[in-house]
């Protein structure tokens, strides 16, 4: 009967769909998996065999399969000696990613909160207040979306040098604020201007001022949009390398994770046990944020939160 062949056809297509999907998923997961596994292997193993060798029996050595030493080394930055694949003894000075991790936090939290607050204020102003030049100014803000941040690097660096701001946290917060503002203002404007007019009018009739209205009403109502954008700004700032390279420069006391990791690639490109552990440390917080707030992340993407 036709029903039987129909069923068979369905089964084949299901196998095909899930099979191809599984292959793609494996291709997409294996790179990260390799990094994760390697970061827990002892140095001698990482530099001797591929990470997939962990599933092979390893009776020939007496070292443990997994260790936390790599993390201890890159976080605390104590000096270590280990043997490279070619037999040479290497003394490695510490990387101290723990310090860089704190710096990244000090950079990222204000560089996320400041632009969102400023953008929300501006979005409210553009959406619900009357003033001279409103249209022209708003169009200019949106037009600035086309400007790649590379344009601003040289002039801003000159200003910072003149003002003595280079290498300070204020410098990098302001830079991230400036580069994130056009998109933040634009997205939040789309949201805030779409709030129902009646709510605002009734609040005004109750005698609320613009400021209290904004703090008590607009901000809470805009939470979904604010949260979406906050995740994006957080990920951009945390994952940014270029802005940090230019405006933090070479001051190790304030260097952030991406900078330190990039330096490690240069200085110890072959010491994979440290590189993998270091890379995983830089990924830890973004992955946590990403998984716990995926809903907002997706909503933000659909609303256009992507910065080239």
């Amino acid at each position, binding site marked *: 009967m036709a029903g039987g062949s129909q069923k068979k056809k369905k089964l084949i*297509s299901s196998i095909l*769909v*899930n099979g191809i*999907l599984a292959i*793609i998923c494996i291709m*997409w997961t294996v*790179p*990260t998996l*390799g*990094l994760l596994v390697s970061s827990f292997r002892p140095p001698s193993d*990482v530099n001797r*065999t591929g990470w*997939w060798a962990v599933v092979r029996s390893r009776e020939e050595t007496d070292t443990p399969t997994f260790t936390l030493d790599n993390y201890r080394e890159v976080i605390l930055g104590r000096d270590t000696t280990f043997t490279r694949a070619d037999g040479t003894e290497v003394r490695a000075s510490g990387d101290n990613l723990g310090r860089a991790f*704190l710096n990244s936090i*000090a950079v990222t939290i*204000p560089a996320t909160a*400041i632009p969102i*607050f*400023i953008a929300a*204020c*501006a979005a409210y*102003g553009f959406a619900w*207040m009357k*003033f001279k030049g409103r249209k022209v100014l708003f169009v*200019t*803000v*949106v037009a*600035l979306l*086309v400007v*790649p941040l*590379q*344009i*601003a*690097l*040289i002039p801003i660096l000159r200003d910072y040098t003149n003002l003595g701001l280079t290498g*300070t946290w*204020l410098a990098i917060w302001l830079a991230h604020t400036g580069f994130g*503002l*056009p998109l933040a*203002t634009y997205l939040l404007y789309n949201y805030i201007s779409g709030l129902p007019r009646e709510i605002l009018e009734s609040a*005004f009739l109750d005698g609320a*001022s*613009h400021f209290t209205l904004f703090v008590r009403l607009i901000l809470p109502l805009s939470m979904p949009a604010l949260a979406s954008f906050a995740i994006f700004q957080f990920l951009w700032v945390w994952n*940014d*390398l*270029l802005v940090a*390279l230019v405006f933090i420069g070479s001051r190790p006391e304030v260097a952030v994770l991406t900078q330190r990791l*990039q330096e490690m690639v240069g200085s110890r490109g072959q010491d994979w046990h440290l*590189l993998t552990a270091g*890379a995983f440390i*830089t*990924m830890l917080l973004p*992955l946590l*944020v990403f998984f716990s707030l*995926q809903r907002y992340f997706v909503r933000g*993407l*659909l*609303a*256009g939160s*992507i910065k080239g």
Partner: protein
Amino acid sequence: MESQPKSPFSAVTEWLTVGLGQILVSVIVPLVAFVVMWQGFIFLRDGDAPQVVTVIIAIIWGVGGVGALYLLANWIIDKLPDTLATNLRPYAFVGPALVILGWFLFIPTIRTLYASFFDATTTNFVGLENYIFAFTDTRMVESFRNNLIWLVVGTGMSVIFGTLVAVLADRSKFEVAAKSLIFLPMAISFVGAGVIWRFIYAYRPPGAEQIGLLNAIVTAFGGQPQAWLTISPWNNLFMVAILVWLQTGYAMVLISAALKGVPEELLEAARIDGANEIRIFFNILVPSIKQTIITVATTIIILTLKIFDIVFVMTNGNFGTEVMASQQYKQMFRFQDFGKGSSVAIVLLIAVIPVMWYNLKQFGKKEAF
């Protein structure tokens, strides 16, 4: 909107009579706020407190400072005569954003354009010399070629894989899990991704055990291990793979959402008419999600035009992998040539403008959030 309307004149007189004290307060409060902020800045720049303390103070100072500034601005405006306050208040809301945007994007665009017509230190006018460099120098021509590779292959593959996963996941019971796995790399930085993929491309001389996945596979099939990142021009493709790995999740999320918007009846009708799945895909699905595909493509195109981190970490532009942004960075910081660096930045801007403009136009057509 404000309290009851008054004539400007009576408002001013009343405000003055309420007191000198108020004026004094209006001056002192901002002054105190400013001094506190300034001390905080000095402490953060030069202080040698334990790092955790500094970090916490920095966060409080930074986030709290912005809030305080707004409170202060609002407070000062409240002290002003009503008509003046009404006129000024909007600028308290939009002003900070405008000032920062002016300083960090608007004026720099003009300054960079200006500097691009001058020499390395912006002292002598050199006309179009920097632009002649930007379009004729061998490294720059190489950059244009590579950016084109990034643009075409990176965007194309991201969109193709993104669509493929979106369509397949839509028909699979494991939709959520599969999408999460593909999506995950989006949270990873270009630098982190660079390390992940350098490890995959790691090279050991023939005979030694390969610890890089790609060379392990190649040697398992009897091939010779290769130093993948040094083989020009293919090394560009090996780096583009990283971008595809990172951006497919983005393409997938948008395309998947668009696919869910295609009415089920339309697909059912086509199936009853005997159309197979491939015809349904190209004749029904693709036209209905065209808008979204354009948005995704233009967004990734902009990303590829500005691509920097991956190249910087993987090859630093060596072995024929230079791109515009890495050239600009080198001109600026290695050769200290602000003229040439500026001209490359302007070229980058001109390349991005039409794509971004088109992207915004598309985006404006759909409702946000």
